[in-house]
């Protein structure tokens, strides 16, 4: 197991998934923040979509009335009724269909989840079944929206009639808090719907294949510095000071660090191996050092010898 993998194992959100081929894949549970963000995005999309649809319906209804001199009783009954049915059904089917259809698709994510880079997966590496998606979405209603609406109704009622809502308000608030905080009280950040459905929400991995480092510059087989033409050769003892962790740090630096950061790394390595640090040709030096260190470590790796970091 390499250092990067081990680093991620210590992360609290990291889990391992064993594929049927027996490969251990690291997966990362979605953070609670990104899940909340995804839900807020989804609700906003639904609400604004429905509002736009309703506005369209009212516009059509307005057209119906206009033809009759703004007298509702004279408007065509069939058309009016059709609009009413559309109004009632659109809400229901949008609310449930939006989540179901999208989470059953090959992305396993709603639009909001896609934007925040997460997806739904079956817990334990099974298949994500339609039943599971249905169950987790039905539960969402009582977790969040039912108590919210009930609280809203209670608030409106009490402000209207000055009546005391009594303990019911507290019961609803407690209910809301219980389910809202549910993900904070289990290891996998499951909400109630995830438990009932046997699912969890994981991060969607996005990694681009980076360039090969050992084909260019001073890292290549017969590579030399483009600036000075010098070829750096390091001895066994000089390469022995570092391990895999340092190698991969150096790789990260070579891929995306700024020149002044490279200068600092260059100086550190030179001090460590007892060279006199020059100036101006840091990148070639580091590329050559990287390639030779990696060649040595990988060579030892093939014989089962691994050096995790400079201390081992």
């Amino acid at each position, binding site marked *: 197991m390499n250092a990067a993998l081990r680093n991620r194992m210590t992360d609290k959100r990291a889990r391992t998934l064993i594929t049927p081929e027996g*490969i251990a894949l690291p997966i990362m549970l979605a953070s609670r923040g990104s899940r909340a963000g995804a839900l807020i995005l989804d609700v906003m999309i639904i609400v604004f979509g429905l509002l736009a649809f309703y506005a369209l319906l009212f516009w059509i209804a307005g057209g119906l009335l206009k033809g009759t001199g703004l007298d509702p009783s004279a408007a065509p009954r069939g058309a009016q009724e059709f609009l009413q049915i559309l109004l009632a059904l659109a809400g229901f089917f949008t609310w449930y269909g939006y989540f179901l259809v999208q989470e059953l698709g090959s992305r396993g994510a709603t639009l909001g989840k896609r934007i925040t880079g997460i997806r739904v997966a079956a817990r334990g590496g099974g298949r994500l079944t339609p039943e599971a998606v249905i*169950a987790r979405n039905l539960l969402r209603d009582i977790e969040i929206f039912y108590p919210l609406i009930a609280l809203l109704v209670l608030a409106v009622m009490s402000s209207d009639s000055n009546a005391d809502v009594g303990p019911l308000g507290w019961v609803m608030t407690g209910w809301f808090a219980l389910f809202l905080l549910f993900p904070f009280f289990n290891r996998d950040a499951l909400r109630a719907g995830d438990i009932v459905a046997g699912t969890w929400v994981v991060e969607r991995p996005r990694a681009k294949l980076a360039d*090969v480092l*050992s084909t260019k510059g001073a890292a290549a087989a017969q590579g030399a510095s483009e600036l000075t033409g010098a070829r750096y050769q390091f001895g066994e003892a000089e390469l022995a000071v570092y391990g895999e962790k340092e190698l991969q740090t150096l790789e990260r630096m070579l891929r995306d660090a700024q020149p002044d950061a490279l200068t600092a790394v260059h100086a550190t390595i030179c001090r460590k191996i007892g060279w006199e640090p020059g100036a101006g040709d840091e990148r070639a030096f580091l590329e050559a050092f990287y390639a030779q260190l990696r060649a040595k470590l990988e060579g030892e790796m093939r014989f089962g010898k691994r050096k995790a970091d400079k201390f081992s």
Partner: protein
Amino acid sequence: MKAPIISSWFGRGQLAAPPDIASAALRSDRFRLEREGDWRRLDDIVKRMEGGGLRRICDADLLALPTLYRTATSSLAVARETSLDAATLAYLEALVQRAWFQVYGPRQGFARWMREFLLGGWSRAVREIWLDICIALFVMVAGAIVGWLLVAQDEAWYYRLVPGGLADTRVPGASREELLATLGTNASATGLSSFAAQLFSNNSAVCILAFALGFAFGIPSLMLMVHNMAVLGALLWLFAGQGLLVELSAWLSVHGTTEIFGILLAGAAGLHIWRAMAFPGTRPVLVAAAEAGRRGAVVMVGVVIMMIVAAFLEAFPRQLVEGAPNRFMIGGTILAFWLTYFFLYRPRSSVERDG
């Protein structure tokens, strides 16, 4: 080892050909360059599958997908033991995970699932929760009796149980004629279809609530069912007082056999989840809850369908068909249909057929 290279294939977004393999100084980089074409091809197929389902993938790619996936997994396994290139390892891990989601993804789309659901899946799920249905049935009958008895003892209970909007003229002390009028029919069908649509979304919401509340230890589910049935009991008592019990039953039976059956199933599904979590047996609680939850979800999709049927029955036949025998006939036929469908219709599942 010489890997099969499909480097001649370059899809969209392919910027440059990978560098010459011989120029790489490291063995692990040569290993990577030899297989990179396959990885990129898999990457592209997976990206298109994520984007728009299977339709946009040509047959050759679809056939190659499992092979490419296994190539990538074996590359990952080898790279972990031979390569120290963190960027390549991270890419391979992400690629294998994404491909895994597609290769072992949902086997059937929504349409196929729906067909399987109607042809056996639904009735099988209903039969699987028979014990919970019995409990829910017992609770509902008890609720109706409690409602009747409460109102019979003290009429004040009637106003507490029955919401004001529902019971306009249906209050204790109403005359026989007033009560009979509420069971009447409409002259025409206008306005009834929108009534049906509203009934549907209202009733389905109640059922989903009854199901979802089961998760909270089943007690709210039971309370909801008891309350609903207590209202029914109170209504029955009111009409029985004027000798209209048969008329009311007939009026209710048109849609009630479907609607009350649906509430029964929803409550039973909720109870089923709670029972699985309280008494998981030898399974871990989370596994038991997930199994019960999936079964419950199947029942719930069916309940929503039943609510659509009930809303149509409530809006049209109930308001248009006159006379107790006719109404009883409609309600009874529907009930017989549901019972036959759930308990006598037993096709073998496609899983059994395949296996």
